[in-house]
């Protein structure tokens, strides 16, 4: 689960970089379409990952009502 979270973070960072490329000096029409497709796929993956992931809640078994 934690790994998946890391992956979302990585994907979000990658998407941010891709979007920044479109506003940067390196922008070229030749590459724009392939980069757009990658960005679109990343956004879809981020959405799917975020909607699928559930928190893992674990109530610890230790009792805290007395010194042990």
């Amino acid at each position, binding site marked *: *689960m934690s790994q998946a979270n890391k992956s979302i973070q990585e994907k979000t960072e990658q998407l941010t970089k891709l979007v920044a490329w479109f506003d940067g000096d390196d922008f070229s029409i030749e590459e*724009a379409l392939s980069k757009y497709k990658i*960005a679109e796929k990343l956004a879809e993956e981020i959405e799917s990952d975020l909607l699928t992931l*559930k928190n*893992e809640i*674990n109530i610890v078994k230790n009792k*805290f009502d007395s010194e042990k």
Partner: protein
Amino acid sequence: MEKSINPQPLYSVSDFIAVMNQTLEFAYPSVEIEGEIASFKVNQEKFVFFDIKDSAGSIGCFMTIWQLRVPIEDGMRVVVSAVPKLTQWGKFSLTIKSIRPSGEGALKKSFELLKIKLEKEGLFAPERKRQIPTLPQHIAVISSTGAAGYADFIKILNDRWGGLKVDVANVQIQGQGSPDQIIRAINFFNQQEKLPELIIIIRGGGSADDLSTFNDELLVRAIAGSRIPTLVGVGHETDQSLADMVADVRASTPSNAAVIIVPDKNEIIRNSKMYIDSLVPRIAQAIDQQKTEIKSQLTIILQKIENTVDEHLISIINLKNILMQLNPNTVLDRGYAIVRGLIKKGLTIEIETNKAILEAEVKNVTSK
């Protein structure tokens, strides 16, 4: 105990005191008494003595300084949990197990006294505050799992984010013994082999007395001493506790604690979509720009071709004019004639004008 012929038992003084203490212990193993503090003093920085009194009575009390979890001073209204005891000098006293301020005034006073003390020690200093992880993967929650504040926290957490490992210590969050339970939970998480990245202590709103748990000196010190960064969200927006103040980050409510810890996944999804949508006009704009540039370059090229063609046309016209000037017919048109044949007296020659070709005889030749 000495034997006696008297049916009544004969005690030594110390035996009698012991019997009295046994009787008291049997009848009142523990009592809670509310009253006002008087003659408060600490001896040898270890032993605490005071009287608890009301308008009609007063009882001496004893406890050790380590049991004193909140600051106490004369005039403060308190509830003591104690064991009644007869001392070896025959004096009746209460051995205090715990003491807590009672009533809003006393709670406030106690809060202020402890706040000043801890502030002097630098426990609330901003430079002590640690940053909490931006996107933790493993967190520890200390709360009562049956409390509304805990339910709010978990709901908001689940609504906002997924994939977190959440270890929950279910503890009492109000009343006697609650600070110790929370301290044990803090210690428990701090002793784990794989430490959580953040400890979150939460409870919803309550009365000043309910929330006084979070003004316990040992609890405040345990939060300060945690090697795991801490976030405390206790009560409502307006409530302030010493636990809040000592924590690395304070949340105004349990729900706010969840908001601080994790980003909102729905917002991230919205932003991702917005990013993608913003790229289409960006590409269209770039294509338009490229088209305009190509158009302008084509115009320049066409202009250059036109200019070259014009230059060549002019040259051709000039050449044509020259050629026309050089055309013999043009010369003949101007009245000249071409003479063919040997120019010798008596010989016949051919003369061509613009209109006719003549045969003529040379009558005379004179040199110029």
